[in-house]
């Protein structure tokens, strides 16, 4: 389960979701306009650290998030080092990582229900075009919660194959995985209906 929310009473926890999203978006946008220099790279890191400190999440959470995106940092940095000088590569990578870390602050300090309510409010004008904001928000929630379930179903399929002595391969994995995923989708649809979602 992508349970990203960290309960707390920090500044960001108290900010209304819409304003918080706007604020973080502006900060990220500001970072993206920084020049490709070492001091800009440093500034990006300082902003990210300040964000986590002011948000009341602390440096331990920042470290956890960094570990989570370590591969992305590595790949981004490496790819840029091939084509760019070290200073530009360091600045670009720092800006990208800082942007990811800052964007993470939104979900770390906002309950999913509040996030969904904000998405609903944000999409409300689209209702005139026939788009149901409530349904869109629910779609987002279900997508987020289904990712780990699918991962577990996939692990189950692999385990069952190993137990029967089958070799792990994409072709032998895809069909049973699709079957269990569709079954899950069916059950989830039924559960949603049962919980009042039309």
């Amino acid at each position, binding site marked *: 389960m*992508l349970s990203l929310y960290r*309960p707390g009473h920090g500044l960001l926890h108290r900010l209304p979701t819409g304003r918080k999203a706007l604020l973080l978006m502006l900060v990220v946008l500001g970072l993206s306009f920084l020049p490709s220099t070492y001091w800009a790279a440093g500034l990006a890191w300082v902003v990210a650290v300040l964000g986590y400190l002011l948000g009341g999440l602390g440096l331990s959470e920042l470290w956890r998030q960094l570990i989570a995106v370590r591969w992305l940092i590595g790949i981004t940095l490496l790819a840029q080092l091939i084509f760019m000088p070290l200073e530009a590569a360091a600045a670009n990578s720092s800006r990208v990582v800082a942007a990811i870390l800052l964007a993470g602050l939104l979900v770390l300090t906002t309950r999913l229900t509040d996030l969904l309510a904000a998405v609903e409010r944000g999409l409300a004008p689209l209702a005139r075009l026939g788009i149901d904001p409530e349904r869109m928000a629910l779609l987002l929630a279900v997508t987020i919660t289904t990712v780990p379930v699918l991962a577990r179903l996939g692990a189950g399929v692999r385990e069952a194959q190993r137990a029967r002595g089958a070799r792990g391969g994409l072709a032998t994995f895809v069909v049973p995985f699709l079957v269990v995923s569709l079954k899950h989708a069916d059950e989830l649809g039924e559960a949603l209906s049962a919980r009042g979602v039309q």
Partner: protein
Amino acid sequence: MNSISLDQVGVRLGETTALEGISLNLGARRIAIIGENGSGKSTLARVIGGLVAPSSGSLRVHGVDPVRQKRELRRLVAFVFSNPDAQIIMPTVGEDVAFSLRSEKLSRPEEEARVSGALAAFGLSELAGRSAHELSGGQKQLLALCGAFVRRPDLVIADEPTALLDTRNSRTVADHLFLGGDHQLVLVTHDPRLALRCDTAVLVGSGRIHAVGDPVEVLATYERSLAC
């Protein structure tokens, strides 16, 4: 008003006849539906809960027509399935329980009070902020029950809710189903002990009703049919 009546209800799922000519009047508080795998008992529960529309016949659930009054039915019925994984919609325990109250459009304090009350009743208060999918199977099923009961339903339909649980968790889940609130309970089960805790039992076989009445007698009929 707190009764379920079916009149010649039939359900066809593709080419298969899942239920045929079901006529029942169920006014008991706790009703067990028993029968072999594929007998149609889950379909019967789903028809009562408005999740499957009958192909023929008519029914009333607590005075509501599940086909024409879906919104009203959702307000009074809560469903619990055997697989709790498919019932969890939101990431954390507290948020998932709150999800059940979305349609009630409560104020934030009201919603929080209802959620914390329900979590406490199911012994889940300490897990409120925990990731729902990291819970054990028993805790997940308790969460599913909590999500159902927080809506204060008049009718709870549970389809083999203890099928995936160990003895201790089965007992806890069953106690909540039988003892929590003054709702009517329709329980689909393979467990004779649970059927015996009900006031009435319905034996379903090949999409038809084979027996209705006292659970001891209905279970005896079921046992005899298995011996044949």
